[in-house]
């Protein structure tokens, strides 16, 4: 590519923009819908109900151990659609680039997106590129929207969650947030943490195939498992009781959280899901989860309760109780 940096002409709709699309996006994403060079993609008919989800990615740093903004933007939306129990159809991608952003970095990010989409087997069928003036953006923002369809027989939603349901987590929590925090805070231990960024559509398919009565699936991204538990409690009018010792957390993540004074339950994940299911099917679901490579460390961590006020409680390792509340602001390290 001739130019080394993004300039305003790359978003102006003129010749440079067409070249950016033809030289970078088309070969990377390579599919018939994009090659048609329309402003839209026409999709074929599908059976079942349509599912749609969107996600904007503004992560810093752009590249982190275990992933980058490109793979994250694919996985995030894939997972949001998959949590409905849906089969994925396609993705769109919108880029907001800052003037002066290195073309080489953009190219790396686009290649990573393409590789992630390819591994999921989902085409990126339409897109958009805008350029903002230097200082008006933060290098690159990516929005992706995904469409999928879910068969009539599958119905997953918080409204189906009832007291007595078991709560499962699909593996070690807090890996993504730890990788980001360690890099961002410039901690010398940064190399030990790897983001768990991964597409969960196949794990979801295995869980549904197990035949267990699943009531709700959700991925604990920003705000971590704690925030997810509070969301579901509020939306289903229930409470929850979690066994602190049952929650899978890697030793290094626990150690980092101890140092920073943060609870791993609040740390972000990008490749985990939380499943609510009928108590009698919990073991069967756990078995299906552990049989999948992305659910090996899965565990039953607690159950849905009828507690007044929708409190999410944790039973600590020696039998005391505490609330796991909504976050107020960012989790901040304690000062002494």
């Amino acid at each position, binding site marked *: 590519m001739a130019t080394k940096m993004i300039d305003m002409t790359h978003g102006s709709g003129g010749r440079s923009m067409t070249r950016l699309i033809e030289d970078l996006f088309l070969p990377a994403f390579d599919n018939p819908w994009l090659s048609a060079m329309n402003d839209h993609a026409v999709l074929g008919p599908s059976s079942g109900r349509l599912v749609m989800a969107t996600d904007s990615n503004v992560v810093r740093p752009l590249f982190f151990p275990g992933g980058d903004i490109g793979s994250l933007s694919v996985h995030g939306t894939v997972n949001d659609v998959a949590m409905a129990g849906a089969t994925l159809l396609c993705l769109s991608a919108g880029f907001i680039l800052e003037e002066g952003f290195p073309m080489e970095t953009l190219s790396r990010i686009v290649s990573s997106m393409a590789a992630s989409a390819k591994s999921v087997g989902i085409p990126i069928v339409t897109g958009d590129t805008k350029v903002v003036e230097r200082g008006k953006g933060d290098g690159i923002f990516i929005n992706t929207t995904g469409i999928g369809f879910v068969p009539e027989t599958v119905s997953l939603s918080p409204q189906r969650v009832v007291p007595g349901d078991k709560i499962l987590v699909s593996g070690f929590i807090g890996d993504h947030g730890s990788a980001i925090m360690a890099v961002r*805070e410039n901690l010398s231990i940064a190399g030990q943490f790897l983001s768990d960024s991964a597409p969960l559509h196949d794990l979801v398919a295995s869980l549904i195939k197990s035949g267990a009565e699943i009531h709700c699936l959700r991925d604990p991204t920003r705000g971590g498992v704690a925030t997810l538990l509070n969301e579901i409690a509020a939306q289903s009018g229930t409470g929850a009781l979690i066994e602190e010792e049952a929650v899978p957390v890697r*030793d290094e993540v626990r*150690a980092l959280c101890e140092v920073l004074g943060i609870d791993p339950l609040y740390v972000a994940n990008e490749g985990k899901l939380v499943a609510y299911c009928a108590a009698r099917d919990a073991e069967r679901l756990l078995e299906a989860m552990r049989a999948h490579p992305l659910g090996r460390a899965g565990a039953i961590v607690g159950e849905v309760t*009828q507690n007044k006020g929708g409190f999410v409680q944790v039973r600590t390792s*020696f039998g*005391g109780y*505490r609330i796991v509340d909504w976050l107020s602001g960012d989790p901040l390290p304690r*000062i*002494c």
Partner: protein
Amino acid sequence: MSLRYIDEFRDRTIALSLAKKIREEMVPGREYRFMEFCGGHTHAIYRYGLVDLLPPGLRLLHGPGCPVCVLPMGRIDLALELALNHEVILTSFGDMLRVPGSHSLSLLKARSMGGDIRMVYSPLETLRIARENRGRPVVFFAIGFETTTPPTAVLIRKALEEGLDNLSVFSNHVLTPPALKALLGAPSSEENPTIMGFIGPSHVSTIIGTKAYRFVAEDYHRPLVISGFEPLDILQSILWLIRQVNAGRAEIENQYVRAVDDQGNLKAQQETLRFLTVRPDFEWRGLGRIPESALGLRREFEALDAEVVFGLREKDVADPKACECGEILRGAKNPEDCRIFGTVCTPDNPVGSCMVSSEGACAALYNFGRFRLAGAIKGES
């Protein structure tokens, strides 16, 4: 899976056996009132649900050892003045940014109004900011007890060594022993019940040593057990306090031997006193003006003293009327006794400082324990 030096101090079996000993050794019908001085202990007590393990005859009073909590609104107003009127780059710890000053204005709100306020994890990050902004004044809003003071001293030394003449320090460092003295010297009453003993600071004691507390036993005849921050540390310290009270002893005991000795960290003490000196007095939220209870910059370093450089004049500002932080910080009231606890005053919209820091008694109860107040069933539905 286990984390060494962490999990040993959170062992369930030992916790339950300590709790059993506490129950057995308490004299029936007698109320034991101990104060945990540090917010770190308050936090741990609620975080690990220790309350559920302790019998009702044992009352834990939450003390003033939360640096964000005890800073009066007048000092926060000065920080706001620095950020908004003197247009400095103000650096401070995260918790400090959310504490409201007068007119519910906090540093976080001041930032949205255009103030250049930056959160740092270490005071030394201020050096880099000062280096990168040589044309602008940069002020470190220093808060904390003896634990966080030595890093401020190091910041001053490094700024001098580098010749960073745009960097100054707004010191709000406070001292533990004078606050203990103020608590012990206050006349006891129905509303101000006698504190029978103290769970003493852990991290502060690594700096000042056990010797700093002798007056508690010698002059005031109360036991004090220096305790680590882990749940087992706290339970063991409570047991030791009960034994002292039962035996009529008043001694300074050190449960936190793995980190604290008699003399403390002499190097940190020297470095601190090289640059900082004891102020004649200092205003504390809840405890009033306490003599010789805080540190300011030595006169020879006044070129780095933000109070001198910017001519700051502290005004007395009364706490919001409905807020009971003062009583709570003295151990005279519990968070749930405050009328606005959990209604008007919440972590999202704090009125008083005790609701801001995770070490504040109100935030600890709200975040971890308020299901008990709501009458929610503990655990099982």
